[in-house]
Each structure stands twice: as C-alpha cells, then as structure tokens.
C-alpha cells in the first residue's frame, strides 16, 4: 500500500483513496449540521447541559437575531443621548469580551494582555481618521494592526503553558503601555486627539458598535461549530493529546488569537472615534485588560452568551457605579471572580442554566406526582 512516488505529496494519495469508502457522503455543509454543536454545550457544562442541549442549540442564532433587532430598534423609542452612550460603550465591551472568549474560553489560554489590541486599534484608527481615512477603513486598519500585534505576541508566548502564558501577557501589555507613553508621534503620555470633520452623529456610532458586536457574536458561533472550534477545545482540554490526533496547537492558538485581536482592535478603533481622544493611561491601562478578562469569566467562560451577559452587566453596572464610587465596582468584580472560581466555574450563565434546570426538574416532579 506504500505509494510509489518518493517524497512530495504523493504518499497522501494512498490513504486518501483508501479512506473514501469509510467516510460518509461528502459535500454536506457545516452550517446545517446539528451534531457539531453538541461539542460546545459539552465544553461549557459537561453533563447537565448535554442532555438538554438540543433546544438552546437551535435557538441560539434565532435569539441572537432577535436581540440584535431589538437593540437596533431602541433609537425608535427616543432615548436620551446618555442611554445611547451607555449602550454604545456596552456594545464595545461585548465585542472585546466575546473576542477574549474565543482564545480564553474555547482555547483555555488566559490572557491579561488584550488592552494591547484594544489600545493599538484605538491609536491606529485615530491616526487613520486624522489622515482622512473614512471610518470603516480606519476600523479595518485597527483590526489589521490587532492581527499583526497578536502574531508578534503569540509567536514567543504561546510556547508557554497556562499560568506562564498568562504572566507573560501581563509583561507584554505593561511594556507596550510604557512604550506608547513615550512615543512622541502620538502625543506620548498626554494623548492624541481625533479631528474628524463633519457633524457628530451619535446614532451612527451606536449602529457601528452594534454591527461590530453582532459580527463578534456571529464569529463566535461560527468558530464554535468549525474545525477551529474543535481544535481549540481539544487544546484547552489537553494540548499534547490534541497534537497526538493531528491538531497543530501553535497554529490553532495563533489563529484564535488573531481573530480575537482583530475584533478587539476594531472595538478599540470604534471607541476611539467616538471619544475623539486616546491616551496610553486610558487605552492601554491594565484595567482594560482586566475588564476584558473579567467579563467573559463572570458571564460564563467558553459559552456563546456568557461573555455577552458578562459584558452587558459590566458595561451597565460599571457606567452607573463609577460615577458614585470609582473603586466599588472592581471590589464587586473581584469578589465575584473569587466566588465563580471556587463555586461556579460556568459563570452567571452556568448558574442560570442550573437554576433553570432545577426549576424544570421540580416542575416535572410536581407533574409526575400529579399524574397518577
């Protein structure tokens, strides 16, 4: 059975043709497959959700569209500019949170360095806007800069495992902040102003943030169903074991890192355009990295909706509390993080689904008791 051709791709032809009769009919598309989705529910909450996984699975894209439509319709009800601002900021957080979850949740690589992508994206967009680029191009540039940074950071640090990787990302993000504080071309520590011509349309900003957040959730759903999603979960569970089955761990992590960085960079860019001002202490702050990490973990790491829920809560609560007690919200989130690590690793979404199923079971029991 050894193919005659020496070297090159020829040896592959042998097993490939041999494989054909074993494989099922080729050609079905990934999107309509119900089975691959099961992996994700298992990834989030091993056994409890696996049994009831069918319903939420098919409803998720539907719910996403509904939520997006509802948000898109909000301006019709004439909310004040403050409400729109709150929603705008929250949607930016949602994007970053969902992005972090691609690498940290599906792939298990906890990064404390996402402020690098957020900040570089913000600066890239700011510079591009000042150079006269249109908003969508500058947003694309922000994403591209994020990808470049993710590769530059990922190549050396992904050789490290678990906590070592996490610590290295702290070092990287602090080093980048120090450097940006000293780069005079973008104003150094005093920051950089975005001069955009034309009137300010708050709703335009709102819709661009909504579109980006929707794109992030869609990407998250697609990744989870894709080959990349399977590879990420396998790497999270057992990196060497995944490699023993043909998964290239470094490539998998780099790819997820790049997608996440693109989304986070774009989020930074969109926020920079809205704020019309960027500065190192703001965009590259360790607090930004911390927020991007806390939101998905608190919401429910490794799920589609956990990061969205976490970001929504963070965004709304953060904006409300920060005015009165600037530090109280981090105190609350620190305590929440402790509780989640110790008692509910699946986060708020996990807790909710557990309560929901417990309630269902109680009702079933009541029905069962009533039946005979």
């Amino acid at each position: 059975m050894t193919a005659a051709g020496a070297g090159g791709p020829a040896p592959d032809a042998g097993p490939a043709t041999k494989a054909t009769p074993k494989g099922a009919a080729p050609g079905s598309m990934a999107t309509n497959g119900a089975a691959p989705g099961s992996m994700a529910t298992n990834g989030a909450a091993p056994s409890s959700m696996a049994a009831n996984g069918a319903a939420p699975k098919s409803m998720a894209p539907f719910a996403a569209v509904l939520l997006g439509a509802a948000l898109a319709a909000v301006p019709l009800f004439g909310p004040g500019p403050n409400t729109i601002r709150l929603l705008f900021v929250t949607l930016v957080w949602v994007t970053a949170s969902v992005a972090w979850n691609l690498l940290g949740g599906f792939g298990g690589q906890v990064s404390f360095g996402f402020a690098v992508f957020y900040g570089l994206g913000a600066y890239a967009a700011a510079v591009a806007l000042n150079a006269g680029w249109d908003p969508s191009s500058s947003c694309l540039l922000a994403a591209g800069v994020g990808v470049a940074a993710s590769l530059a950071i990922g190549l050396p640090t992904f050789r490290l495992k678990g906590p070592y990787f996490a610590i290295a990302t702290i070092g990287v993000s602090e080093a980048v902040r120090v450097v940006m504080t000293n780069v005079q071309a973008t104003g150094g520590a005093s920051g950089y102003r975005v001069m955009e011509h034309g009137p300010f349309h708050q709703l335009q900003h709102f819709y661009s943030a909504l579109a980006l957040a929707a794109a992030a959730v869609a990407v998250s759903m697609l990744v989870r169903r894709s080959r990349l999603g399977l590879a990420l979960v396998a790497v999270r569970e057992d990196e060497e074991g995944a490699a023993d089955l043909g998964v290239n761990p470094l490539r998998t992590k780099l790819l997820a890192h790049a997608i996440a960085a693109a989304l986070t960079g774009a989020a930074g860019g969109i926020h920079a355009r809205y704020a019309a001002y960027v500065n190192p202490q703001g965009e590259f702050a360790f607090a930004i990295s911390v927020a991007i990490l806390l939101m998905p973990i608190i919401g429910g790491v490794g799920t589609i909706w956990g990061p969205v829920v976490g970001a929504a809560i963070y965004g709304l609560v953060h904006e409300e509390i920060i005015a009165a007690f600037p530090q109280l919200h981090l105190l609350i989130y620190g305590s929440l993080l402790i509780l989640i690590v110790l008692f509910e690793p699946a986060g708020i979404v996990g807790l909710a689904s557990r309560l929901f199923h417990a309630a269902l079971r109680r009702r079933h029991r009541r029905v069962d008791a009533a039946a005979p």
Partner: protein
Amino acid sequence: MPPLLRVEGLTRTFAGLAALQGVSFELEAGGIFGLIGPNGAGKTTLLAILAGALRPTAGRIVFEERDVTGMPAFAAVRAGIVRTHQVPRPFRTLSVLDNVEVGIRFGRASRAAAAGPAAMGGGAGSGGSFGGARDAAGGAMQVLERVGLAHRARAAAGTLSVGDQKRLELARALAARPSLLLCDEVCSGLTAAEAESVLRLLREIRAAGTTILYVEHDLKAIMAVCDRVIVMDHGQKLAEGSPAAVQTNPAVIEAYIGASGKGAASSEGGAGAGDNGGAAAAAEPAGSTEA
C-alpha cells in the same frame, strides 16, 4: 517492497544519560509487531520519538520512504503515525463522539480531503476542510461502532470506565486513519475478558490494513497476537524474531529474570494489571537510569 518504517541508530539522551542507544529495526506493512522489555528498557521513549512527542538525539526515522525524523506530533499524525497512551487521556469534558471527531477532522484523512475533494471518490460537493462536519460525525460514529463504544457516544468522556477509556483511546487513534498505529499497553488494567476483546480488535485493525507496533510490559499478550517481536533492554535492542524464537532466547530470559524478576515473564493472561500504570513518557528515562 520497501519497509513501512525504517529506524536507524535511534538514540536519545536525557542530561547525558542514554534512554535509547542506537536502536535500529524495520517494520513491513501489514503486520502486528511487538515491542517488549523490562521496565525502563526505553520502550515508551522509543514510542514517544516515533510519535513526534520527543526529538531523538541522533538517528533517523524513515516512514513510507519519507524522512520523518524530529517531526512534531501533529505532523507525524498527518504522515500516518498515530499513538495511543498507556494511561488514557481523553478530552474529559467533551463527549465521546467529539473526542473521536478530533481524530477524524485532524488526522491523516482530513488533510487528504482538504488537499483535493476529488480524492474522495469524485464526491458531489466541494467539502474542503470546512465541509466535513456532518461527515465527521458519521465517520466518528462508525469508528465508535468498530470499537464497541457507540452506545456511549453522547456521554462525557471523563465519565467512562477504565476499560471504555482504553477503547476510546484506540477509537480516537483509529479515527486519525493511521497506516502505523503505536499502541502503548492497551491491555494493562483490564480484566482478562476485556483484554481478550481488545486483542481481537487489534487483529481486526491489522486485517483492515493498518500496521501495528504494540508495546507491552506483559509477554503473554504480545505472544498471542504478534508476528514478530523486538526485545529491548537498557535502551538497546536485545533481540528480534518470531514470538517462539524470542521466548527461548537466553539473552531475553536473562534480561527479564535479571531485571524485573519472574513477575513480568509469568504474569497472568492479558491482565498485566499495570504495575507501572502511572509511568508516563517522562518517567521512563528516570527509570532507565536506575535499571
């Protein structure tokens, strides 16, 4: 016909101590080959090098006439060499089916499919690397049926019994469609009946065209299924030949009785009861220095 695998002077040292010393052998396609030796003989080190988990210090590995020396593990899998672990290591929170799907979608067949859909027997669709989600699930189910684990397809892999985890370990490796399957003590820790059925499975796998290199601490299981046996001791090849010839080889008897007592040579049936159950690849070299 050239051999499937040719190993030339394979050597691996850890901090100056040789865990493997100039080992050479050849495997022809289509057989079951045994690799035996006392604890710390270098079997697991050899397996780890063949599977790409360790780099050799010196030597060459030629597989299907292609130099695969020092290839990383995932590349070795795609070249057609897949291993199982002595202690099963499933992706615990994933379902059994999804575990197997990883092998299906990232193993050897997947790359061939991605390289050219035409190779899939002129299939109707341009599946490519993203097309195979449903195929993969179907294929995974077939593999699970082959190893008799289909009824547990939806269970989380971490909840399986030891015996079923061993089957899953085999199923995952098979899913990657190896032409050379490296089995590390697939019978240890199993009851005699379970071991018997795993050995039957190995014969079926061979019959379907996969060559097997079977590492076992326990002689009896090896003798039952192997066409040829390689005996190792102290990181070197001690002997090679048919099971019958090896069993009567004085050097082999000396090594077994001398190094690990009578226990290994005369232990019960297939149930080698894993007296070195926890030893992983990393532990082996340490052991070899003591031996």
